[in-house]
């Protein structure tokens, strides 16, 4: 089947003739001529691709630098080409470019929800998810919205709708088969934000109307915004609309769900401000739009904190959704990277084990570190490729002497005292006391150091002018205990008091000329416990139990919300009589957690660095044609590319097989 036949077929499927028929006919007839003349694939010319949207069997690619949209035909017959072909321009030798009047910054497509009749006679309101007639494109600071036809016979900018102030967020709801939509937009004039609902007729009627008339038909929604702008919008089933705000200055923001008929509002219990909202199609027993997904805003994030990520609330109540463990879900994130793009699709083939299986609802997120991850959007957690329960690599626990100059670690000693593990000589007796909560324990090495320096109280500045005070932030000063030793200027001074400004000693006589100081643990809890990733965890003494609750990064199988295991716990043995300062125990921990994180191998994609837009091509009944598209924006000197990976071929780590780059 040729591309032209495929397009003709699609035209028939559209089943509608319109004023745009002339344009569509020109495209298709010209396309037929072009296809007979050339077997070669047409280059899509996707320079500056930033954002992606799948509407039906079309992939829209937003190019900000060229101020245009390109369109890939996902219905391209695989016998003709394994690649999705670009929709052709009226001149069939050229790919279609939908010109935009201003440099675009964002693009969203209509989503629709229709009621589903159940076999038992009940109705799921808005349970079915569908595409609509339009795409909406906005520009930075632009007081207007470009309304683009999303059907094959209307691939043009149908209207430039002016707004009273620059648009900060936009969304659209398809109202059904008649082709009408509701457009929602938020504006911000620098001090006041407003939220509008604007009815749009079907494309034929839209182009027959004036922009002024369409705008005049809109209504300002009765929501007051004070000291905030609107950052995101998402239509929800049941004629509801979710909106998120961003506080002017500060780091605040809120998300609410507005009933457009009654005006009632429900607070969405996201743990912080949200910068993007998204709903989902039906899948995994969930009706379309049952959950409202949000990308958490990292605006207030501090170094060392894990922030951002994907969260979901129940769209009916606004409550944080319980994940597969039954506990409120945790943000789905990966390391310190920011989530850039997010897509969710049903019935996706993934290879999680030996063979590909169908996952009912899958999320894909592109990351600022160049990677992407896939997650289970029903269970609301990462896929986990590591079936082990996290804990300690008990065979590799060691007891070592102090690190000497020029060494990377101390000499290994016979294991005496310390956190109790098996004695390799009696493997039938399980004496291991070292446990790590699966989903909380990290891949890191825990050190338990005798009379160790206390993290946060190492090599701090001081001077004689401070007298008996050694200054440190109160939070870290609290790690010290009375009797610990301040080491400075050749002196070791017992700590006699601790307050919010540091630690104090009784006397500094004979310790003049001091510039730096550290604090060492002594007394009843002379062991300092710290992780290479987690940092300071606490202190412990001989024969004591140690426990650090920590924070879970994932609720993995076996997690108990009622009694969550601590990140790290162990029991200490008796003190080694020969122990010396800085002798230490090393506990190599493993998380037992291996999420579905991948990246595109640069040898395949060229200079692909930072993915942005992401979209699933999930409409195929043949799952082998399902794919994940990712946009890698770059500059004109190369590397502009959209990557397609069949979902069943996606692997953790570097992806190099079966990838189709589009340029």
């Amino acid at each position, binding site marked *: 089947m040729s591309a032209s036949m495929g397009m003709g077929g699609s035209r028939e499927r559209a089943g509608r003739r319109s004023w745009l028929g002339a344009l569509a006919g020109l495209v298709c007839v010209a396309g037929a001529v072009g296809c007979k003349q050339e077997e070669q694939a047409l280059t899509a010319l996707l320079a500056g691709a930033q954002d992606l949207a799948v509407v039906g069997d079309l992939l829209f690619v937003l190019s900000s630098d060229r101020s245009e949209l390109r369109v890939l035909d996902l219905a391209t017959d695989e016998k003709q080409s394994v690649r999705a072909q670009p929709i052709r321009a009226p001149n069939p030798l050229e790919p279609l470019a939908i010109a935009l009047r201003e*440099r675009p910054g964002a693009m969203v497509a209509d989503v629709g929800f229709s009621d589903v009749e159940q076999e038992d006679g009940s109705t799921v309101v808005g349970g079915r998810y569908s595409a609509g007639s339009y795409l909406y494109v906005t520009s930075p600071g632009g007081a207007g919205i470009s309304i683009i036809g999303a059907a094959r016979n209307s691939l043009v900018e149908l209207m430039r709708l002016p707004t009273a102030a620059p648009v900060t967020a936009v969304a659209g709801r398809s109202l059904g088969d008649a082709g009408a939509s509701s457009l929602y937009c938020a504006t911000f004039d620098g001090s006041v934000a407003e939220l509008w609902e604007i009815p749009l007729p079907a494309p034929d009627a839209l182009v027959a109307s004036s922009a002024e008339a369409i705008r005049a038909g809109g209504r300002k929604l009765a929501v007051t915004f004070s000291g905030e702008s609107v950052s995101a919008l998402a239509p929800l089933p049941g004629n509801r609309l979710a909106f998120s705000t*961003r506080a002017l200055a500060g780091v605040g923001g809120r998300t609410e769900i507005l009933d457009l008929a009654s005006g009632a509002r429900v607070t969405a219990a996201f743990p912080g401000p949200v910068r993007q909202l998204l709903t989902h199609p039906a899948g995994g027993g969930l009706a379309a739009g049952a959950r409202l997904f949000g990308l958490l805003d990292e605006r207030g994030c501090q170094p060392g904190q894990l922030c951002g990520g994907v969260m979901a609330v129940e769209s009916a109540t606004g409550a944080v959704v319980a994940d597969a463990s039954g506990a409120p879900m945790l943000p789905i994130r990966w390391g310190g990277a920011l989530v850039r793009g997010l897509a969710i699709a049903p019935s996706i083939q993934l290879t999680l084990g030996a063979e590909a299986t169908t996952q009912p609802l899958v999320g894909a997120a592109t990351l600022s570190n160049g990677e992407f991850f896939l997650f289970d959007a029903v269970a609301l957690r990462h896929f986990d490729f590591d079936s082990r329960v996290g804990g300690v690599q008990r065979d590799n626990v060691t007891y070592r002497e102090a690190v000497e100059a020029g060494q990377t670690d101390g000499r290994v000693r016979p294991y005496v005292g310390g956190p109790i593990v098996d004695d390799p000589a009696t493997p039938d007796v399980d004496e291991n006391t070292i446990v790590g909560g699966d989903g909380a324990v990290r891949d890191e090495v825990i050190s338990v150091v005798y009379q160790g320096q206390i993290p946060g109280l190492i090599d701090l500045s001081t001077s004689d002018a401070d007298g008996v005070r050694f200054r440190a932030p109160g939070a870290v000063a609290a790690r010290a205990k009375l009797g610990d030793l301040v080491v400075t200027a050749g002196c070791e001074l017992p700590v006699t008091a601790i307050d919010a400004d540091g630690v104090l000693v009784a006397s500094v006589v004979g310790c003049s000329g001091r510039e730096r100081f550290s604090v060492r643990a002594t007394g009843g809890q002379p062991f300092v416990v710290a992780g290479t990733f987690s940092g300071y965890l606490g202190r412990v003494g001989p024969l004591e139990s140690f426990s650090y609750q920590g924070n879970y990064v994932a609720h993995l199988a076996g997690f108990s919300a009622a009694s969550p295991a601590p990140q790290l716990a162990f029991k200490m043995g008796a003190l080694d009589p020969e122990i010396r300062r800085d002798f230490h125990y090393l506990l190599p921990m493993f998380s037992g957690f291996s999420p579905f994180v991948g990246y595109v191998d640069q040898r395949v994609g060229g200079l692909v660095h930072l993915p942005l837009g992401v979209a699933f091509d999930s409409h195929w009944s043949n799952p082998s044609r399902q794919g994940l598209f990712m946009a890698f924006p770059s500059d*004109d000197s190369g590397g502009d590319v959209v990557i397609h990976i069949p979902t069943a071929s996606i692997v953790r780590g570097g992806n190099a097989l079966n990838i189709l780059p589009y340029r």
Partner: protein
Amino acid sequence: MCAGLLLAACGPSSFSNPPPAGAFYFPTGVVHVEAGAGSEGALYVASSNYDRKYDFGSVIGLALDNLVASGGLPTFGAAVPESGPPTLTSLAVGEGALAHIQSFAGEMDKLASGSGARLFVPTRAEGHRVNVLDAPGPTAGAARIGCEAGQECAESGPSLVAFEKDGPDGEPNPSGLPRAPGPSGVGVAPDGQVFISHLLRADSPPGSLRDNRAYLVALDGNHPELSVDSFIELSGGATQAVAVGAHYAYATGRYVDPAASMVRLVSRAAPHKVLFPFIEESFRVLEARGAALSSDEKRLYIVGRRPDTLVVLNVVGDDPPTLKAVRGIPLPDGANQVRVLSRPGRGDLVVVSCSNAGSVVVYDDDVGALVAEVRDVGLSTFGLAVHRRAAADGVGQGARIFATNLGDGQVAVIDIPNLARPHEARLVARLGASHVCRTQPKSERCARAREKGELQ
């Protein structure tokens, strides 16, 4: 000394091929110096003489009050006429308001000095100097500028390759280190500490392409002399731009080899204390260009390339500061320099020049997105200077922004009449005659400039 006297005795025009006295030529660095309430102040523009058509580059000082009084430069906040922003082809450069510098000038920054400023201009021609010029401020209708040698300032300031052949002790220096070839970026602290970045790797021995080093060069701007201690080694790569805070200087990295560090931090009190925050591990762009700090130093804005991205970082603590990337905003093609307009009680506005797109964009941290793009600013928009001022409507503050266009030889003037409404940013004028027909002789721009009589 003799050379200096000779130069002082000669006016700029006594050379066979001096740069134009009334126009910019491949302008790069730009600085605005305020001159008291009610005054438009002075604008200083460095011309890089990029194709070496002339013997030198230049710095031209413009007394902006003159340009406004003549009616050529619109008053701040005025509406743009229907015919479009005017072009001032005649700049009325006053006497003593042009100084020669080396070719291939990069950025320019200022150190307040009396009613005027001392200007620092890194140059990449022979000598790899940081030309140092003094601008006493606009007086008697002229924005004079010069150096100890009068207006011949190409040899002013220290050479960053001074120790390449002979060390500071005069002995041969086979390592060729330290040196900082290709100086480009400059950041000046209010107390006079000056930091210079450089685009070319310092290999050792010179020319070997081995043992490549990157430096940040620190100078006392009041006494800009160079010693070995002026060179702060940053490991490999190259440095692009530098933002100077109260305790640390933040140097961005350009892609050479190895891959660039997005930013490296140098302690101002202990300059050889260098911090590597490894931001590139959490935010992956190929290289970084401009950088700017918010006035409270709690935010750092870095312009990344490939893809063009404004990377917003939270800065926590001051000694040492720690960084966290919290947002990435896609930018138009060829993003370059960045300036911050802090707003009391509100989030920052961040202005970015985009060379390939020929535009200037404004990011609003309150909205978390770009809120304005001023297009058709010119060809290869590069440097940015800001004149903060009372808002045009008298409520709050506004800003006039000057953007150099390397490709057409002009300076674009952009007004944000009120910082509370950054979407109202607009191009209001272009300064200088165009040299676009030299860079794009067959372009429509060239034809249009010729038709309008706006060519040099």
